[in-house]
């Protein structure tokens, strides 16, 4: 090995070691920078209302900084000349080594280059590169450790959040959860039955889209309520338009009456009606499911209390909740229900993940609600099947449109077959002629039946079959519209529930029980004294009337006096109240009732006349539903009657 090669080898060794040390120092410097970034992120998070992702970004940058710095240090290569210059400066070699490296390659220097290389080698031999570049912790390591220690200590300091911020966060969370539930419920309804009318489908889809929008990008509480109110108004308008159809109203009323009668007469039998799913394993009645759902809601409230009160360390509370969930799971199994989210919730409780527990319980709640709805529908179908009218007039009279349509279809098939004997034809004609009267309330159905009767009388069976088919189609249309109206009602119900949830800050499931008698505003049954509100919920919500014009309908059972044959009461003169407009008692103060409700700010674009009409309709509805105390009914009627 020549002197120059020896020189270059030594310098390359120094360059390698220097490169590694540069990476080592850069790592520690990067660690200081990364720790500072993390500390700043942590401080900012502790002091300012920043989202959690600030911490995540700080952590990623904090980890990346030393790695990037070390890689950068390794990537930077030095030429032997640069290393030689560094060695000269570091060891005060007076440019011996760098001169030797440069001159050693140039033959024009002759003997001088040899002299230089020998001189440089002599000086380098005295040097120990390991001693010049020792592996020690740089000063920056102390700073890094200091900053990391401060960061770790800061981790134990609770973050500062103002009450308004916490409130806003809760509201956003509620808006997000409500949006998710709204979208979930509406999409499920859409999957179950797609509305026949485009307008209805669009309206229901817009509800689902709003839910998704709220879940995706939660709005503030007022914004969310405004959006929900806007959409509610739109859907209501859609329902009102649908309700303009008198035939549809009649069909709905008939079905409702039929359903009410069935409910009342079969109240005692309902518990005996077992619901079976497609696979035949589910043995639960809708009542079982409702009871299960209520138990689940109680468990959900306990879990929320566990989270809110920070009682996660309270073993007794956890144990109670675990027992309740296990009991629920057992009940579900006995009923043949397979609710996987309930098992997941139990697991989450075991591992102490309260947030996950809440999510799983919410999913289980929705699953149960869906099952209950299915069970109710099945029960209703069963009952309807049992009470289907014996012939077309009776079916039409009872509003059993599907059965009537089926009967009509049979008649069509019979007429089309061509071999109808006169007796059969007479029977059909007789049935059709009797059906004309009850069909009068279903719009064109009666016309088609009349037409069919005339054609049958004229022995034109084919044309009569066509008329009967038209009548069947008309009924089908009505059924579709009715189903659409139910979809709209479902969407409206979901919207109102969402409004209630966001407005009161309750969860979706809690919002479902709001306003029900016997339950406090929190949805929790009253404590201390027995409540005569039946837990089976015998008092149901009054039917939705906003979309319907019930002004012409006589409902004696809803009258404040009840069903009576006594006629108008004739009060003695002393008992007859003196009517003074605007006053309940002359000279006395006007009683006032403070109403709680949602305050939606903004300008109204409703015309006065329209507003007056709406108020009058609402007042009439409230009066007819006995929602106004008897003593106030007169003044209220007068007041709204005089509005112009």
């Amino acid at each position, binding site marked *: 090995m020549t002197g120059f090669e020896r020189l270059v080898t030594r310098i390359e060794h120094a360059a390698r070691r220097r490169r590694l040390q540069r990476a080592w120092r850069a790592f520690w410097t990067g660690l200081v920078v990364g720790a500072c970034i993390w500390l700043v992120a942590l401080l900012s998070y502790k002091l300012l209302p920043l989202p959690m992702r600030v911490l995540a970004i700080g952590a990623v940058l904090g980890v990346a900084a030393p790695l990037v710095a070390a890689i950068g240090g390794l990537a930077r290569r030095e030429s032997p000349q640069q290393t030689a210059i560094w060695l000269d400066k570091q060891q005060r070699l*007076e440019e011996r080594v760098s001169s030797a490296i440069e*001159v050693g390659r140039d033959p024009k220097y002759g003997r001088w280059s040899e*002299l230089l290389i020998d001189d440089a080698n002599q000086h380098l031999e005295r040097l120990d590169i390991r001693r010049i570049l020792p592996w020690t912790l740089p000063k920056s390591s102390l700073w890094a450790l200091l900053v990391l220690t401060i960061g770790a200590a800061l981790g134990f300091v609770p973050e500062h959040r103002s009450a308004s911020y916490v409130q806003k966060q809760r509201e956003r969370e509620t808006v997000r959860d409500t949006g998710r539930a709204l979208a979930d419920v509406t999409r499920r309804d859409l999957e179950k039955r797609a509305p026949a009318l485009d307008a209805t489908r669009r309206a229901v889809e817009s509800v689902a889209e709003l839910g998704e929008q709220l879940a995706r990008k939660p709005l503030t509480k007022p914004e969310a309520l405004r959006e929900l109110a806007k959409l509610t108004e739109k859907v209501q308008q859609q329902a009102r338009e649908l309700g303009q159809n008198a035939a549809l109203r009649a069909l709905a009323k008939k079905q409702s009456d039929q359903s009410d009668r069935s409910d009342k007469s079969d109240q005692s039998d309902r518990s005996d009606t077992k619901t079976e799913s497609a696979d035949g394993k589910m043995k639960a009645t809708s009542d079982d499911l409702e009871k299960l759902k209520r138990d689940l809601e109680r468990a959900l409230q306990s879990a929320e209390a566990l989270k809110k009160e920070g009682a996660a360390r309270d073993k007794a509370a956890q144990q109670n909740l675990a027992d309740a969930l296990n009991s629920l799971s057992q009940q579900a199994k006995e009923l043949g229900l397979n609710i996987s989210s309930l098992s997941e919730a139990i697991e989450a409780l075991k591992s102490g993940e309260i947030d996950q527990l809440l999510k799983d319980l919410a999913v289980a709640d929705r699953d149960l609600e869906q099952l209950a709805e299915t069970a109710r529908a099945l029960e209703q179908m069963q009952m309807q099947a049992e009470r289907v009218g014996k012939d077309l007039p009776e079916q039409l009279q009872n509003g059993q449109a599907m059965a009537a349509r089926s009967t009509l279809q049979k008649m069509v098939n019979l007429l089309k077959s061509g071999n109808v004997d006169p007796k059969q034809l007479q029977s059909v004609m007789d049935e059709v002629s009797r059906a004309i009267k009850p069909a009068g309330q279903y719009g064109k159905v009666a016309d088609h039946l009349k037409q069919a009767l005339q054609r049958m009388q004229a022995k034109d069976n084919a044309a009569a079959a066509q008329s009967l088919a038209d009548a069947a189609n008309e009924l089908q249309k009505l059924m579709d519209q009715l189903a659409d109206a139910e979809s709209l009602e479902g969407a409206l119900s979901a919207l109102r529930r969402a409004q209630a949830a966001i407005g009161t800050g309750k969860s979706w499931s809690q919002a479902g029980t709001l306003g029900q008698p016997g339950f406090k505003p929190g949805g929790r049954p009253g404590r201390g004294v027995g409540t005569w509100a039946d837990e089976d919920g015998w008092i149901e919500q009054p039917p939705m009337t906003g979309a319907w014009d019930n002004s012409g309908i006589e409902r004696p059972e809803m009258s404040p006096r009840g069903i009576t044959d006594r006629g108008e009461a004739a009060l003695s003169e002393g008992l007859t109240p003196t009517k003074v407009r605007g006053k309940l008692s002359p000279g006395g103060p006007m009683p006032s009732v403070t109403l709680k409700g949602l305050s939606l700010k903004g300008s109204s674009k409703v015309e006065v006349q329209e507003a007056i009409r709406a108020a009058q309709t609402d007042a009439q509805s409230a009066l007819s539903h006995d929602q106004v105390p008897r003593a106030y009914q007169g003044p209220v009627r007068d007041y709204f009657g005089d509005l112009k």
Partner: protein
Amino acid sequence: MNTDEQIAKFREIYAALKREIGKVIVGHEPIVDSTLIALMAGGHVLLEGVPGLGKTLLVRTLGEVLDLTFSRIQFTPDLMPADIMGTNLVMEAPDGRRTFEFQHGPIFAHLILADEINRATPKTQSALLEAMQEHSVTAGGEVRRLAEPFFVLATQNPIDQEGTYPLPEAQLDRFFFKLLVGYPTAAELTEVLNRTTETAQATVNRVLSREGLIELQQLVRQVPAVSHVKDYAVRLVLATHPKTNTAVPIANQFLRYGSSPRGAQALILAGKVRALAQGRFNVSFDDIRAVALPALRHRLILNFEAEAEGITTDKIIEQVLSEVPENAAAVAA
């Protein structure tokens, strides 16, 4: 003689020269070193100092230790160029014919002592321009080469400025070094008294012949100066150029003109001599820094502001040295 022997001889002679001069000159080691560096580099030296500090004695001693012809020119206001360079005289031959014959002036010597050079008129001063740079003299329409080595050592007195003519910039630039001769220390002054007020007289030996000096001067030029060291010298010089992007702030503030390229040449050549004298085979940054003051101080022209504030070129050079980094990468960054 091979390179190794030449280098050894250089060191030996350099040490001997210092030793012999030291017999006469007390102290002033930096001045002696710088003078020897300029001698080996083939440059001229301007010595500036108050009277009585040994400037002339140093040059005379140098003339004694070197086996060279020596001339001393005492510059006075009535000194004419012809008094320095020589002139054509009418000479009568034995046969009675008269011819012009060039009478060589005192400049035709190897070692010239130009004593109190600033007392001569600019016309006379400028007579030295050609001689110092080209090593030739033009007189009577004829260019006459001066014998090598040609070495001018000039002295000037910074006080008693009445009736003096400051050297023009072009003249100053031709001096390799400008050395400022300061006062001796107490010990040195005592030694001066011992040597000069007693009977014993110091005798010096001739150390170096003319040929030997030329040989050493050639050896000096072979010393390698690597690119980053040359680059440092260049950046130092460029930093003195005011109103350029390479200038340091103090140069912009206090300089009218910066150093000429001769400044950079002086830095490198002087650095080479210093490296050899110190036993190295290469020029270092330290060498450049060590010779920067004598090589550049007379090449910087101060502006009015600097004159008014009493800023010296030495201060500016020190600032330049502190501001210009050795490593070019630092400049790029």
